């Protein structure tokens, strides 16, 4: 059975006004357990909207969302987040800046009852997990997260999102706001955690090489639809040029994304 199944989901924003925009139109997608799927697409193709629909930021107008056999179409966002981890492009969104590293981790771990304080065991576990990041954060557990750099905050968010292994991890250009060296490091961590933990993952990127190089399957989106879906051996032999050609064939026009990276960076 599929881990995530989207059946013909549609979403129109501002219906009946001049700003009406059909952001998702009858999109279907099925992800197997352990799939690591990269997503590329033009500006306004609906990539982030797709993530918002899956995470529950809004309810879809039509269609159904199923996660691991459970219909979550009308489940509110905070309940979905028990099973869906998520990272945004903005490293500030995933952590509470005025709380300490260990307090952020304690919230993400979500263990114990409402009135249980952080135990020594929790701290030891957090320290162990933080050491995996190799950023020295394990020695700064009582410092507020606001003191960390963007890359450190994003790495921490990744750790928090996967603390309790989620059924699905959504990565929305989570390295795009970081400097190249830090981005590489966070990407390596992502690969380690996702592939090591066999976590089903969707990753939006604007880097075409990354899209082909990471994961086992690549989707291209345009105008709220999936126009290309490649995986396996077909994908293994593809270069960026092939991908762009296939996009043109699928979407009927060339890919236009002012931030797209065609070269290796």
């Amino acid at each position, binding site marked *: 059975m599929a881990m995530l199944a989207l059946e013909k989901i549609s979403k129109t924003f501002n219906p009946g006004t001049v700003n009406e925009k059909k952001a998702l139109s009858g999109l279907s997608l099925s992800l197997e357990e352990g799939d690591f799927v990269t997503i590329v697409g033009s500006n306004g193709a609906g990539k982030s909207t797709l993530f918002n629909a899956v995470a529950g930021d809004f309810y879809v107008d039509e269609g159904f969302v199923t996660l691991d056999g459970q219909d979550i179409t009308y489940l509110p*966002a*905070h309940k979905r987040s028990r099973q869906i981890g998520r990272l945004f492009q903005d490293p500030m969104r995933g952590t509470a800046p005025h709380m300490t590293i260990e307090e952020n981790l304690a919230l993400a771990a979500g263990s114990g009852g*409402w009135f*249980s304080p952080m135990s020594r065991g929790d701290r030891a576990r957090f320290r162990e997990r933080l050491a995996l990041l190799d950023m020295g954060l394990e020695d700064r557990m009582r410092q507020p997260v606001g003191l960390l750099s963007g890359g450190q905050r994003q790495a921490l968010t990744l750790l928090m999102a996967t603390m309790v292994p989620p059924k699905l991890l959504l990565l929305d250009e989570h390295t795009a706001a970081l400097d190249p060296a830090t981005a590489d490091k966070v990407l390596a961590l992502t690969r380690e955690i996702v592939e090591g933990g066999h976590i089903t993952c969707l990753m939006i990127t604007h880097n075409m090489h990354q899209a082909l190089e990471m994961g086992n399957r690549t989707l291209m989106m345009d105008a709220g639809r999936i126009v290309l879906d490649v995986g396996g051996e077909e994908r293994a032999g593809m270069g960026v040029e092939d991908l762009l050609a296939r996009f043109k064939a699928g979407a009927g026009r060339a890919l236009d994304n002012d931030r797209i990276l065609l070269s290796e960076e």
Partner: protein
Amino acid sequence: MTIVQTALEAGFLYAPIALALFLSFSILNIADMTTDGAFVLGCAVSAVCCVAGHPILAIPAAMLAAAAAGFVTAFLQTRLGVPSILAGIVTNIGLYSINLMVMGTSNLSLFQVGSIYTLARDAGFAGSWYELAVTALLVLVLCAVLVLFLRTRLGLSIRATGDNADMVRASSINPTFTVTVGLCLANAMTGLSGAMVAQYNTFADVNSGTGMVVLALAALVIGETLIGKGSMVRRVAGVLAGSIIYRFIYAAALRANVPADYMKLVSAVIVGVAIAAPAIRRWVLFQIHKFRTRAARTRGGNM
């Protein structure tokens, strides 16, 4: 001596309101205007319980009633989409009538009615300092409970709600729930203050809550400015200290024959100036910088 005792007593009596605003305003980032009405509701419930002969039961009863008022505000703002300040104002106005209903009159005297203070006095607790001792004991217990609570998972969730609601949602916690719990707790603390004040003053008056939110905000701001931020223990201690310092200022002003009614203006100025301080400081520093660079350029041009 009496001025010190009076100021300390008042400082502790009103400290729970400052702690309430610490929770709602500093931590949850919500300006909770329920405070004035919740304070009087605490007074009213406490007074009615005392008249019925239950001065000890009066304390939790008043806290529970005030928590219910906080729940109404929270419900209006989280479930019904009323803007948070308006939600508090609406509840506050409604509470005026509720408070009259609870007391059955606009001013309820507790003269010659047993209170937690007369109980302590009759038991010979802490000699002539019994009023301060009883109040301080209750407030210190409250501070300890608050600090411990803010370390629990629920406490952390409430703190995170004011810091980054997205992150709370991502941790599978409903911000609606944390805001509701936070406002109920904050108002329960305000109710505790009202309960103590009514028994201390031996009367409850339906108009005694006017401006209470600003007075408490002044105490909170003094505490945060002087003691600063840091660990939760330090911040809570700072709020308590702020409440006591404010009452010393108040007592000193009364000593200097400033009419009591003018103290509201003094409080308003303290709050206004303290909250505006960072902006004023930035403006002054910028003007100095501008003046200096211009002066340096003029000097350079003359050479």
